[in-house]
């Protein structure tokens, strides 16, 4: 039923959109009883009298389900929740549903983060209406990041990690950018509360995703984040190099794992001339070149070329010229590298 016809809203007069005589790029709301237009007309009426109520909350939910990107409506929803001191657990439940449905909406993830920040910083969020929330919706962005989480919120953090893991499976989209950004926020925000078992779980989760799809660059990036940004590497750099080489052995042209290998060396201030990796690359290049119809894996040859360039070894030029022949779409890039090698 349209809001304009609902009994529980009959005290309000909907305010139609006023676009003036010649709107720029108007959107076709052609249907006479367009539910989006109807709800927006009522939303304007609610905002006009600054009404913060349960029915207004329901209205924002309806609009969000039609238009998950409407940041104004999201913000109004947040202020209703805070001002009325409503139950954020049930809001988070609703977000479980909405984050699944609107996976690619910036706003849905942002709102989830607000809810989790509020829940993590107070023992009984909004139970007492006279006690202001630990986090208020500030008017200046500088003060908007939540204070550190309470120790009791560890279960909430674990719930969030499990929710996202399930979401990757449910949506079959383990490369979704928003989801990864959110997961990394959880891991950063609750970092001090996590125990060894949590870190162990996370590494197992990463391993399972790499096994599902070794070409998933998001997981490689996430592995880097956990081991080298959060500092979870408990083995040695050498052991991590061996780990990557095994994965490269499975998919020798997979640029995700090669880039990861370059990354972990660089973050440890090491160059490309690592004996172990050079040998490994040479073996790969020779094995493939020996068979007639197979090209050597380009990233292995590139490693040898870049390592030689780093060492000012003239063999680099030859490697780059081979790469130019094997990878013609990047011929300008390889030519340029070969010139660098010549003048090195």
């Amino acid at each position: 039923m349209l809001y304009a016809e609902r009994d529980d809203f009959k005290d309000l007069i909907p305010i139609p959109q006023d676009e003036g005589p010649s709107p720029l790029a108007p959107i076709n709301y052609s249907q006479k009883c367009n539910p989006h237009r109807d709800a927006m007309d009522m939303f304007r009426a609610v905002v006009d009298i600054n009404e913060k109520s349960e029915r207004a909350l329901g209205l924002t939910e309806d609009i969000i389900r039609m238009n998950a990107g409407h940041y104004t409506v999201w913000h109004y929803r947040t202020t209703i929740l805070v001002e009325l001191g409503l139950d954020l657990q049930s809001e988070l439940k609703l977000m479980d549903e909405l984050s699944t449905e609107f996976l690619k909406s910036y706003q849905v993830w942002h709102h989830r983060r607000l809810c989790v920040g509020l829940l993590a910083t107070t023992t009984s969020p909004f139970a007492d209406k006279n006690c202001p929330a630990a986090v208020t919706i500030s008017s200046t962005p500088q003060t908007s990041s939540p204070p550190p989480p309470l120790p009791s919120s560890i279960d909430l953090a674990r719930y969030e990690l499990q929710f996202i893991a399930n979401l990757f499976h449910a949506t079959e989209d383990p490369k979704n950018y928003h989801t990864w950004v959110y997961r990394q926020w959880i891991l950063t925000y609750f970092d001090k509360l996590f125990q060894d078992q949590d870190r162990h779980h996370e590494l197992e989760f990463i391993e399972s995703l790499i096994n599902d799809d070794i070409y998933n660059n998001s997981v490689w990036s996430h592995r880097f984040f956990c081991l080298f940004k959060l500092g979870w590497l408990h083995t040695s750099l050498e052991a991590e190099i061996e780990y990557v080489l095994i994965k490269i052995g499975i998919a020798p042209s997979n640029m995700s794992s090669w880039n990861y290998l370059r990354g972990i060396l660089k973050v440890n201030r090491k160059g490309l001339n690592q004996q172990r990796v050079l040998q490994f690359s040479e073996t790969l290049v020779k094995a493939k070149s020996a068979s007639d119809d197979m090209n050597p894996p380009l990233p292995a040859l590139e490693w040898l070329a870049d390592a030689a360039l780093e060492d000012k070894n003239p063999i680099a030029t030859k490697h780059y010229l081979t790469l130019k022949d094997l990878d013609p779409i990047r011929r300008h890039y390889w030519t340029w590298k070969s010139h660098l090698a010549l003048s090195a």
Partner: protein
Amino acid sequence: MVDESNALISKFLHRHLNLLPSAYESNDSARLTLAYFLIEAFGIIGECLPQQSTISYIDYIYKCQLDFGLGGGFRGSLSINNPPIFDPSNLTMTYAAILLLGLLRDDFTRLDKPGILKSIRDRRHADGSFSPTPTNSESDIRLVYCACATSTLINDFSEVHIPTTIAYIHACRSYDGSYAQMPNGEGQGGTTYCALASLEMISQHLNQSSTLLNEEDVSSTLRWLSQRQVDGFQGRTNKDSDACYSFWIRGAFNSLKAISSLPPSFDIFDDAQDGNFILSCLHPLGGIAKYPDELPDVLHNCLGLSALSMASNRVDQAKSLKRINSTLNVDIETLDHIKRKMSVR
């Protein structure tokens, strides 16, 4: 473009400018960006809008402006006509509005520059990043780009705190030479463009080019950019190509050249293959889509055209397209107009 494709694109643009299909309903609060994608595309194919409509479009855009007392900047549409406490201006819309006014050859006499500066200040975070609105704590590299672009367009960088913003951009740098949406994230084509274009605008403002990135960083970013071409361009390692990344990656490359010692004439891409890919995304009824056989949309249409224009030296069908400035994604004539008008303000 050959006449036939030009005519198809033009039809697509007129159809959408008159009335956007209801599929765009969820973008109602971001209409100025949709309008920018449409009118910039007209600019690239070299088609002028009738003067009567430009006058009324300019009026509409100024109705979206909030004056200094209401926080300054532009809202995305007149969708919410309520007090701005619940619908403040949005940094992305402010950036789109100024470009739109330039495309429509406005003289900017009605532009509330102090208001725009205030709106940038109110969206600035201590870590150098920015939010779209002051009511939204979401902040990332896209908004850094919008703040730098707006400051460049109004020729006033006073509300960008340059050292912290540079530090924020560096924090978004990934281990593979790309840039992520926020610190520690996965590098991606669009965010790499935002980072490098922002650095370029900052370096222009500071009047120094070669100190923002060291040689090793330039080299690994260049490597990452060159890896992105598959036929067209992919946005991340091991993903499919998508017409918009032809623009983001090419734009990022241009900005990288501008802030490094790489020669301006240097090229690393296969323009012919990219051109073929983008043209394969051209729908039979007009408009460029994300992928071949997909429905076109105004964003991919505009960015696809921008990319074709950047490849036009080697893509025959793109020879007639206007030249663009990739840092701000606007045609050169429009940018000249904006600079001229802003300098007399």
